[in-house]
Each structure stands twice: as C-alpha cells, then as structure tokens.
C-alpha cells in the first residue's frame, strides 16, 4: 500500500497509480499540494510503488 500524509491527515491508496490520481482520491486538489517522497519533490505523473510514503506539502502557506 501507499501512504499519503497531509498535515494531520492520512490516507492509504493502492500502488500502481500516478501521484496525481492518488491526490484526486484524497479529495485534495492536485494544484494545491506538492508531493514529496523520501524528502524529494516528485512530479505528479510518478507511478506510486508499494511501501511509498508521500508527504503532501500545501502550496499556500505562511508569511
């Protein structure tokens, strides 16, 4: 499974789909978050692998 984390929330999705599709499944808007895997930014067409943990960083923040 793949874990998605956004602020205090978490979701699990199946591997094999794109990051963008996974974000859509959570109900978040793909334009509003940046996906990070192992501390690295990844593009939204990246295919998720089993065991991935994706942190979704809000685009709008702070300041």
């Amino acid at each position, binding site marked *: 499974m793949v874990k998605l984390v956004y602020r205090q929330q978490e979701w699990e999705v199946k591997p094999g789909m794109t990051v963008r599709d996974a974000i859509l499944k959570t109900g978040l808007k793909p334009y509003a978050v*940046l996906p990070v895997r192992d501390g690295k930014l990844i593009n939204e067409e990246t295919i998720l692998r089993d065991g991935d943990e994706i942190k979704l960083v*809000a*685009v709008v923040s*702070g*300041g």
Partner: protein
Amino acid sequence: MKCRKCGRPAVINMRQHKLALCEEHFLEWVLEQTRRAIDRYHMFAPDDKVLVAVSGGKDSLSLWDVLLRLGYRAEGLYIKLGVEEGAYSDKSLGYVERFAAERGGVHFQVVDVKVTYGMSVLEVARARHRGHKACSVCGLIKRHIMNRVAYEGGYSCIATGHNLDDEVAVLMQNTLRWQVGYLARQSPVLPATHPRLARKVKPFVHLYERETAAYALVRGIDYIYDECPYAVGATTLFYKDLLNQLEERSPGAKLSFYLSFLRAREQGLTFTEQTRLELHDCPRCGQPTTAPGLCAFCRLWEN
C-alpha cells in the same frame, strides 16, 4: 516525466510553460526567471543594497536565497509584529535566524514592534479597532517600519516575496470591484514618491506560488508552514483557489491575465493615475501624510 534539459526525472512540470525540469535545472530556471524580472522592470542594479522583507515564510526566504545566489547585496529585515500573543512571531523569527546562520550569518535586522513602540500589533489593534481584524493596523505598521529602515540604512529599495498568485488574486479583486486607483498602482515596481518612502520591488512576480514553494523544498529551506492566525479564511485565499481552478482548465490563464494587465497598464490604455493628493510631512516621523499633522502610523501610538 523527464527533464527537458537533461533527461533525468523531472521534479516539477510547469504546464503554463510546457516545461518539466529536474532539481538542478529547476533551481537554475528560478534564478534565471528572477534575474530577468529584475532587469526587465529595472528593479535594482547589481551593486545596489537591497532590503528584503522576510517573514519566515517560503516566499520571502526563497527570495532572499535567490538574491544572494545571484550575487546581490541583499540584507534582511524581520519585523516582529506580535500577533497571537507572540507565539507565531517567535516561531517565524526562528526560521529567519536559522536561515541567516546557515548562510554564514548574512546580515539581517529585527524590529520588535512592542519593544520599539510600546505595544504589539495585536495590542494596538485591540486598543484602536476593538475586536476588528489586526490586518489593517498590521499593514500600516509594516509599511512604516520598512520605509524607515530603508531610509535610515540607505537601501535602494525594499524587495518583497510576492509571487504571481498573490498579484493575480489582488488583481482579480480590484477588477471585480473596478478599483481603478488600486489598479493604476498595482505594479512589479512602486517608485519612491517621496524621499522617505522607499521604492518597492517584487522580483518573484513571474513565478507561480507552486514554484516558490517548490524552490524552498528543493533548496531545503525550512520555513513557517502555518498561516498567520489572522490570514485564515482571508478572501485572498478564496481568489487564489478560484484562479487555480481556471488554471487547471486552461494552463497559463493566471500568467496571461497578469501579463496582459501589465501591458495594458504600461500602454496607459486602461487607467490613469488619479491626481496625486498634496502630501505633508509628518512632524514626528517625517514620512508623508495626506493631511497636515501626525500621520496615521504616529496617531496609532497616541493615548
């Protein structure tokens, strides 16, 4: 998805430019875009001393980082506002201090509103506007302090981290209300109209907020992630979201909205600057004010 320049995996795809880039080429691209905006709008020259208004957020810290990497003499100004009983301010100052320390102690100064003027922004807002939002008082105080520090320190201009999303959100609000005065003044560069008012520049105006956030992530810049407690629910966030929905359907919509506005503005096609009001110098601080007597900032601290 591969980087257009080198074929390595792309970390970001900028649909409005049909451009996907890897980490290295994305960082290079952000520097280039910023440098071009600085030159195109004649913001400042290579040896000018620039004051960067830093809040601890991603935009201002990324801007400071980019200016330093481009070799500009960029120094920071952090204004400790004191919103939400100080906790938010302390936290955001921490990010600025770490940023400066990691870069060998680049120069920045802190103006603590409470220490300097006797009350925090929150306390002034409560005293003056009973229960109203702190933002109008906060904006007034920030503008005054930025102008004062720039004047006293001999800086050529104040650079702020406004990105294109910030600008189009304001543009849309002003357009919907047909605020011609504001529209005439909305620009990547605000010239100094008085010796005590600094020139204001926005070197990130061509970058989407997604890109400034991505830049901070890729550069490993640690920034304050929470919004100021008063910003939550602000109408700007609503307009940003609307504009991003438009952008999803039609990539480049935000960019072309902004650039075509600037073009019309430059050609003087749409709005003329309203006749400028006569300005008086405030007897206490020397900054200009529209009515004789103390300026709005100085009046805040009168009992």
